[in-house]
């Protein structure tokens, strides 16, 4: 294993090089552009066997990925924001056809107003599409998740597409020191492709993909997708454990940071978790029992395990880097709060929407949140759901 300095995008591109997918589609959009750009040089230099389809849109990117995966091989792709939004129709079709495509989503805000920086409105908008979604705090995790995503999606128990997310610019464009596995280790870990049960290219055994399912069959097909998501949780655990043996970095459903005896806690996805850990340490130093839970797997949402990990808390704040306009909170909050409902004793739970369009989340912002948490246990929250890091 070697330590190297690279950006999140370059780390993901290198994971893809090591995986050596059979087909990739490429279409530029900031901040994910660099992944497929870097990967194109691997193709041009013969470092991979990949057939690169330089499509004319993200809709066609996902359509080509669907055709390629149904044909019977390993398929990867990357996008962000508007690109993911343009793919939206095809995301559902990839999942409905149970094609284990891996998509690297470099999280960026959706328009309007147009913006190129990080928030999670893109991947959160796709959360009901039937894709497995995994989130990464830093470039190391983004690299590790990309490799695991291949194994997760292709697992015979599930056959599902996997979206591997990291924060645009904050992670995609920041240089980090990270460990890369050896190329051979990655190739052995992902193994030969076995993710398409009925490949189109098997012309001796013709199959029909994408038939019309009416009232008499559609719901059974969706039910199968639902059941696959139920099984996905164990697949993620199994693959994370095996990856840990290989790399020394084990992965599960989420990460807890100083949660064992915590009384007040935060939940944050992706890079915000790094900032939160610093503030947890500060409060711990002051004798306040603070903790953090960083979800890794968002789809399927491991609600039982998350509720169990939060049950000792007195007060909790869920940080959402996306809004669900008009709802009773941000998307992560809605999931977490629902997960807590069945606990005998629930923490007082509030929601802060932060960092939309790349607005920085500072230590001070989180200090204020923790201070608020220390007061609301007795007094109750002054507001359930509000914006922070915002100009009033």
């Amino acid at each position, binding site marked *: 294993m070697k330590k190297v300095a690279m950006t999140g995008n370059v780390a993901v591109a290198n994971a893809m090089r090591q995986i050596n997918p*059979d*087909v990739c*589609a490429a279409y530029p959009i900031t901040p994910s552009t660099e992944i497929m750009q870097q990967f194109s040089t691997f193709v041009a230099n013969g470092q991979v*066997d*990949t*057939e690169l*389809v*330089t*499509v*004319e*849109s993200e*809709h*066609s*990117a996902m*359509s*080509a*990925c*669907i*055709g*390629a*995966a*149904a*044909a*019977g*091989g390993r*398929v990867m792709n990357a996008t962000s924001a508007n690109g993911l939004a343009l793919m939206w*129709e*095809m995301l559902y*079709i990839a999942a409905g*056809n149970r094609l284990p495509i891996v998509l690297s989503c470099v999280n960026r805000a959706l328009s309007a107003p147009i913006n190129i920086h990080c928030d999670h409105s893109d991947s959160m908008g796709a959360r009901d599409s039937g894709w497995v979604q995994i989130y990464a705090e830093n470039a190391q995790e983004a690299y590790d998740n990309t490799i695991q995503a291949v194994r997760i999606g292709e697992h015979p128990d599930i056959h599902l597409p996997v979206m591997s997310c990291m924060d645009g610019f904050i992670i995609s464009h920041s240089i980090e020191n990270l460990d890369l596995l050896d190329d051979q280790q990655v190739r052995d870990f992902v193994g030969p492709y076995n993710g398409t049960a009925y490949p*189109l*290219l*098997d*012309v001796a055994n*013709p*199959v*029909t*993909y*994408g*038939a*019309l*399912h*009416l009232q008499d*069959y559609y719901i059974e097909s969706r039910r199968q997708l639902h059941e696959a998501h139920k099984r996905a949780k164990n697949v993620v655990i199994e693959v994370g454990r095996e990856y840990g043996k290989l790399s020394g970095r084990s992965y599960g459903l989420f990460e807890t940071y100083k949660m064992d005896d915590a009384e007040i806690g935060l939940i944050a996805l992706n890079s915000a978790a790094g900032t939160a850990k610093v503030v947890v340490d500060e409060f711990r130093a002051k004798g306040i029992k603070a903790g953090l839970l960083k979800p890794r797997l968002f789809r399927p949402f491991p609600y039982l395990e998350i509720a169990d990990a939060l049950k000792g808390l007195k007060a909790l704040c869920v940080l959402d880097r996306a809004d669900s306009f008009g709802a009773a909170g941000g998307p992560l909050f809605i999931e977490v709060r629902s997960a807590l409902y069945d606990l005998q004793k629930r923490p007082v739970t509030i929601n802060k929407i932060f960092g939309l369009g790349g607005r920085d989340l500072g230590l001070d912002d989180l200090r204020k949140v923790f201070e608020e948490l220390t007061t609301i246990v007795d007094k109750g929250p002054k507001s359930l759901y509000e914006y922070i890091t915002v100009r009033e």
Partner: protein
Amino acid sequence: MAAIKLKELSKKPDLLTGGHRMCAGCGAPIVVRQVLMAIDEPVIISNATGCLEVATTIYPYTAWKLPWIHSAFENAAATISGVEAMYQSLKRQGKIPADQKIKFLAFGGDGGTYDIGLQALSGALERGHDFMYVCYDNGAYMNTGIQRSSATPFGADTTTSPAGKVLQGKTQKRKDLTRIALAHGVPFVAQASPHNWKDLITKVQKAMSIEGPKFMNIIAPCNRGWRTQTNDAIALSKLAVDTCFWPLYEVVNGVATVTYNPKKNRRPIVEWLKPQGRFKHLFKPENEWMLAKFQELVDENWRSVVGMHNASHPGETIDPEEGKSW
């Protein structure tokens, strides 16, 4: 290329089986069968959403005896791009036998091709995948109930271009998709019609012998949308050609050839319009100008197709006025 014998063709297995649930007398399955008859290698199809797709694959049934994928409406070309890319990749890597020959086809209706799928088609033609896109043009969005598309003829009464008190059907002329495909500089572009099966099959066979992206536009009468009888798809496709509404031609590596010149069979456009309920209002006395305009549009298009032919064949020119006896 060996001579095409109907007797031999009739012995080929039907890859689109009977009982497919398209309307009786629909032109589209005839088109598909003729295309498939022309190909000896295994074929994989990507099919855009539309009548052909919806009616032939009502789960748990499928009428297709070959590998077939429908993913969405606007992306038959992008989807087949992915299938073909995987074939190229696996072949290059030795994961499928080097001598495994497969032909890749995309089928889309006019709505799925002229309109919503134009971008994906353009992208796939430009990238140079080894595939053929076949548009079966029935002149409207039939599956959703006969809405106008950019392929709908001038004056046609559709559910979104109805003949009313003020407007008399579609006010615009058709888009020339065949020429748009040609503008991509692809090695093979053609128009065909199911009544002339020999011409259609010859074109498909020629296309299959050429590597790279290919495009065929094939007229496919729809008795529901055209408001005609269920037994006149072939007669109406023949009339479409003899009136020069639907010229039969091909452009192979830049050489344009009109493959059928109606000459003495040439008919005025009214003969094609008259049997079709969608053009009924054109025959009201106050709409006479529309018939004249329709004829003008047809003549203009024929002159320009003939112009391409004449430029390619200076020794065998066609007179675009030939056969105009009315």
